């Protein structure tokens, strides 16, 4: 979206502040606003910045104004709390400001590595494309590009290139195999989903990846694409329809699929995993999906694992506090990303849990980094890692 197409929503905000807190709980919801406290970092402030830009009062050439626009994790918590008619367009307006900045040539240097890497190696981390399938090297997984499979597992950039997280896709594949699923991966032929490019304002890159992804899997004839990456999942579900190419396959997040396999009695947990855990709802698996938010399947999976004691944080499901990594913040503003994550870790520890479980590698990575930075005494896992322990 570009700003001109969003004029209808620009005057929706009265700056009433309802977007700052969870309705009727009154706990904070906006990471950037809470960290920086200046009104310009809160969603309502960003709506006024958009108004100022459109009216020619403010200029995106101003580095500090762009810094505020990019200090947003795209968690959509504000959209969840806001009751006014423009509420579902708040992040769209922020994203349009980013697109406007890119169009004007006011690029954020922190994203140049990401953009160059996308163009060169189809990933957001500046890693060689040839390393994309390394995590699966010794697992004997089918190559979905070469042989027919029923289900394709999309690994995503984070899980492909971060060895510390390789246990997540490996656990996922083991679970699928244990359930008898005919699964394959694209290996080094896999590409970025383009979701991050969209969020930081590079619409052209996003469109390129969306078209490539849909056309590839349509031609391979898989019935289903499964991913452990919540960012990727919401990109497939909510953003890909914008490119108007019909998808001939369905898309499931790994937690939905595990839940389904358990309920179909194809996956059984036999070993006890004695742990006190709390579950963090990734924004991209919750609010980003609107009414289709995936809130109960991960909880059902955890409850089906013998020995797991699940504690809830005060802000859960559609009111969950963000991990801080989203919408390019972990690349451009690590201070904000880690501070936000640590706020969540403190909330997790307050439940009495000794481990935080989530279902998004961006969340997991950021939480692990926050533990290193701030020292909160808590372990971080993906739900597949916990589930695999029970096989």
């Amino acid at each position, binding site marked *: 979206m570009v700003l001109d197409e969003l004029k209808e929503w620009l005057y929706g905000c009265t700056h009433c502040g*309802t977007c*700052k807190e969870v309705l009727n709980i009154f706990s904070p919801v906006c990471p950037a606003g809470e960290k920086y406290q200046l009104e310009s970092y809160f969603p309502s402030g960003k709506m006024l910045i958009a108004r100022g830009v459109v009216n020619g009062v403010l200029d995106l050439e101003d580095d500090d104004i762009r810094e505020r626009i990019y200090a947003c994790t795209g968690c959509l918590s504000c959209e969840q709390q806001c009751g006014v008619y423009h509420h579902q367009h708040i992040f769209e307006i922020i994203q349009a400001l980013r697109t406007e900045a890119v169009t004007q040539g006011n690029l954020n240097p922190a994203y140049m590595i990401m953009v160059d890497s996308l163009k060169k190696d189809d990933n957001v981390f500046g890693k060689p494309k040839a390393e994309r399938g390394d995590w699966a090297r010794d697992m004997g997984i089918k190559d979905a590009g070469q042989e027919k499979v029923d289900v394709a597992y999309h690994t995503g950039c984070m899980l492909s290139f971060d060895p510390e997280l390789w246990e997540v896709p490996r656990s996922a594949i083991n679970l699928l195999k244990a359930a008898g699923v005919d699964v394959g991966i694209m290996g080094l032929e896999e590409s970025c989903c383009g979701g991050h490019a969209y969020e930081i304002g590079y619409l052209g890159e996003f469109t390129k990846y969306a078209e490539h992804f849909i056309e590839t899997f349509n031609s391979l004839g898989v019935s289903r694409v499964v991913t452990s990456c919540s960012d990727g999942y919401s990109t497939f579900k909510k953003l890909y329809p914008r490119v108007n190419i019909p998808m001939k396959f369905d898309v499931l997040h790994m937690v939905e699929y595990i839940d389904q396999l358990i309920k179909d009695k194809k996956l059984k947990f036999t070993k006890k995993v004695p742990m006190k855990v709390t579950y963090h709802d990734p924004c991209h698996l919750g609010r980003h999906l609107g009414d289709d938010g995936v809130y109960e399947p991960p909880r059902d999976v955890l409850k089906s694992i013998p020995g797991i004691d699940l504690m809830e944080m005060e802000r859960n499901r559609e009111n969950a506090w963000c991990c801080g990594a989203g919408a390019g913040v972990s690349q451009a503003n690590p201070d904000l990303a880690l501070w936000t994550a640590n706020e969540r870790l403190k909330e997790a520890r307050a439940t009495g849990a000794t481990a935080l479980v989530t279902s998004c590698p961006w969340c997991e990575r950021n939480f692990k980094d926050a533990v290193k930075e701030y020292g909160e005494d808590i372990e971080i896992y993906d739900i597949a890692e916990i589930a695999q322990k029970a096989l």
Partner: protein
Amino acid sequence: MIEAVKSKIVEELEKIVGSEFVSTNRADLYIYSYDLTTAESNWPDIVVLPQSQEELRAVISLANKEKIPVIPYVAGGNVGGLTIPLKGGIILDLKRMNRIVEVSETDMYAVVEPGVTFGQIKAYLNKHHPTLRYTYAFSPASTGVMTNALVQGLDNLSFRYGDASHWVSGLEVLLATGELIKIGSCAASKTWQAIAPFPELDGLFLGWQGTTGIITKMAVSLWPNPQHGMAVTFMPMDLEGAYEILEAIIRTRIPDDLIGTSFALNKVGVPAYSHHKAPLYPATKRLPDEPEFVITAEITGNTENELNAKVEAVGEAVKARCRGFKFTGPDTQPSTTAAFPMQALGVLSSGGGLNWVGTYGPMSRWLETVKKGCELQDKYDITRTCYTRIMNEGHFAGLRWMLPYDKGDPALVKRIHALCEEQLDLVLETGYIPYKTPVWAVRRLEELAGPDWLKLHRKVKEMLDPNNVMNPGRWGMPRE
């Protein structure tokens, strides 16, 4: 402000609060330059966010020394343009000073810092003191508790206890000249139970819109939280009927809260609850079989029997007095306080703007004022949006015509502004005094109140703020 001076001031401010809490960025200045009303925008030069009393004191001391205006700010939702810097200067955003310093369960008060919001105190009391409650404003949860009392707001216990400044039982105030003063029992003891029996110096600060000092702590009364509640609704077919119902309920002295709104306002507000725009223009009219007004009495009881008896008594009082008027109802429903804070949604969903001529005045001229005010809305083809709240058991009434509007529609902005000007003329004629008084109404009131009144105000202002740095241009503004 001259750039060289500004740089020096910014440097000093950064030493006091840290560079991350000082901004001269145009985005920040723009955001604080206007609000949801039609008030003329004016840019501040600097935004500062202190966290402690020491930081605040240092900022004020610097501003006073350099004669730079200081405008205190918490949420900016006062609907009076009160935090728009009329003469530039420093926006003192106090949201970081947000401690609930003390809650006395026995003496039933809370001591709060400026940044404490209605949402925050509600959550805190629910968690730590569930037997106590504070009142709630007809506004979003981000509204400041202290600022609401400071600007004499009307809330959901106003029928019982009057405007919010009446519930203040102690103050700590920082003067522009650096003195930190406690007012009320807290000046001479450890408790903050009452202003009496001291001289009522709180009047030097309450209602002054931050022009005489910065309140750093305020004690506000809390009340027992009754277990049972209900809203009783009456819908008269005309304004005469509305007046009779209000009078009948007033004399029972039963409700916690007694409010009335134009039926058409409710009608327009309905789409807002399903996330649609709620435009007032062109006017939405009520149909012939629809009521003119909706009156709601919030009633509470310690037991269900007590509640039911109260509801019955209110119903009987209305029936006894209002035989000559047609009305629908009464109807009962769960308490509207359960909907806090989104009760205001209907007036926040028209396009970023909200204006009103909000007033306090006598019940004796309520009917005349409401009628004429609504007729003015008809003249401008704006939906009737009267909102009234009966204060202090009927000793006076809050009255306004709520005007949400689309800020992106210049013709509508002009129309709303013109309507407000005419409504201001009307209320001043019928003895209704604008509250949270916008500066354009302040000047009119100064003329009405006369030179001796103005002289006294100026003397008070000059005594407390000799360099005229505290939110200058409003109450007590020196002669220019």
